[in-house]
């Protein structure tokens, strides 16, 4: 399953504003945040310095590793936040 991912800050500087990731499906038309992260890190080695520290947002909310991602969801990979 191919998912387009939004990137921000240092990740966007390195990889551009979006990046398409091909992740294995857990069921047809369905993958998980964890599977997406693994596929992303495998295809973008420069992001591996952040690894598990990358925060994942699905539909503009923070998501956990086993949360599901379906076609049409908005997925973003975020470096550790540093506001304030």
């Amino acid at each position, binding site marked *: 399953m191919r998912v387009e991912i*939004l990137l*921000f*800050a*240092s990740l966007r*500087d390195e990889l551009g504003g979006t990046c398409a990731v091909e992740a294995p499906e857990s069921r047809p038309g369905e993958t998980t945040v964890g599977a997406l992260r693994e596929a992303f890190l495998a295809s973008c080695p420069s992001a591996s310095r952040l690894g598990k*520290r990358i*925060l994942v*947002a699905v539909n*503009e*909310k*923070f998501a956990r590793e086993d949360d599901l991602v379906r076609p049409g969801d908005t997925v*973003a990979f*975020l*470096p*550790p*936040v*540093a*506001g*304030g």
Partner: protein
Amino acid sequence: MSGPRVTRSPLDPAVLLGEARRDGDGGLTLFVGVVRDNADGRAVEAMEYEAYEPMAEKEMERIEADLSGRFPAVRLVMRHRIGRLTVGEVAVVVAASGPHREEAFAACRAGIEEIKARVPVWKREWGPDGSVWVDPLQPRPNPGSC
């Protein structure tokens, strides 16, 4: 409440504190995060704030909802500015107004802690030698902002 919580416009702490106050309030607290002129001994000329804007806006709203559960007597007004800010410019404001000072202080402190922990905003530090993204977990005893 006036305007978006995440904005490119300058923030006016006094106006935001006034928005938070109700006539039954006696204790008003304010946190203002501004750009410092140094970080880790490096000179800082500006900080460039970037947000995942729609999510940052919603996360600010979610923090307000969470904190109004924890501090029901307090009204919070919170704003985060984005864009390029120079030394002394205001990046973040948390105004908390309540009947008494204890809860206003607690809510104000909780507000800035939640913003720093949860709101998808990043900052790039600009100095004489170029720029670097700030990583909050890197050992930086002296970061360039609050």
